[in-house]
């Protein structure tokens, strides 16, 4: 399951560096069989919505047993919504966050530690190295920075 999360994060290389996708902590740790449903929350403008939805389609085609439920917002109100979801213990499995806010969510145990995933480092090849600096901030690595373009071979603009 967590592996699945990581792979999805790998596919969502759309957002500018410095924005991060974090994985929610509450999801089950085993079982990759059977249909899996993951909620994904991000903020952005229209171009990011279009591109991210496209990537979700691509991801679903190659992983038909994983259902991605897209929730998206504009910038305004995004972290209001996140705060309410956190209070309701209903944080999405994968969500966009910026690095300043990671400690805040990490301290409350809302974000999973990616180093708990087997062979995490090996799977990380090709990712922006920012993820390695995170332990110095929060003591663990909880998010994947998003690199784009090079990885996917199409230009995303700054969306």
């Amino acid at each position, binding site marked *: 399951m967590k592996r699945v999360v990581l792979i999805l994060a790998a596919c969502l290389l759309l957002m500018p560096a410095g924005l991060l996708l974090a994985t929610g902590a509450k999801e089950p740790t085993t079982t990759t069989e059977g249909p899996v449903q993951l909620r994904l929350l991000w903020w952005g403008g229209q171009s990011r919505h279009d591109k991210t939805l496209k990537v979700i389609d691509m991801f679903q085609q190659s992983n038909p047993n994983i259902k991605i439920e897209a929730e998206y*917002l504009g910038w305004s109100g995004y972290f209001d919504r996140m705060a309410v979801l956190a209070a309701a213990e209903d944080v999405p499995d994968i969500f966009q966050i910026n690095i300043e806010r990671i400690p805040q969510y990490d301290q409350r145990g809302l974000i999973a530690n990616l180093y708990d995933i087997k062979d995490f480092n090996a799977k990380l090849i090709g990712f922006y190295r920012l993820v390695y600096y995170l332990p110095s901030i929060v003591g663990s690595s909880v998010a994947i920075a998003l690199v784009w373009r090079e990885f996917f071979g199409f230009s995303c603009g700054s969306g």
Partner: protein
Amino acid sequence: MFATLLLPFEIKMIYWRWNDFIQPLLYLAKPKLYTVSVALRLFADPTSVTNWGAMFAIATVSLVPVILVFLFLQRHIVEGISSTGLKG
């Protein structure tokens, strides 16, 4: 009498609900269900790119129901104001 008093309030309620941002933001999870106030913000992201053209286009369109409500119900609004409250 009640209708005169309540109708302006109900009309205002329509406007409040139409303009409400924070409640739909908190309660509506599916983008398909977003109300216009939340959906309008989908175009705007000050941290990257805002699609101003589309945003203002939809903002203009979203005014239509507001104007229609006013055009058809303005008699009640005026009545409510003139039959209650302070008159100069």
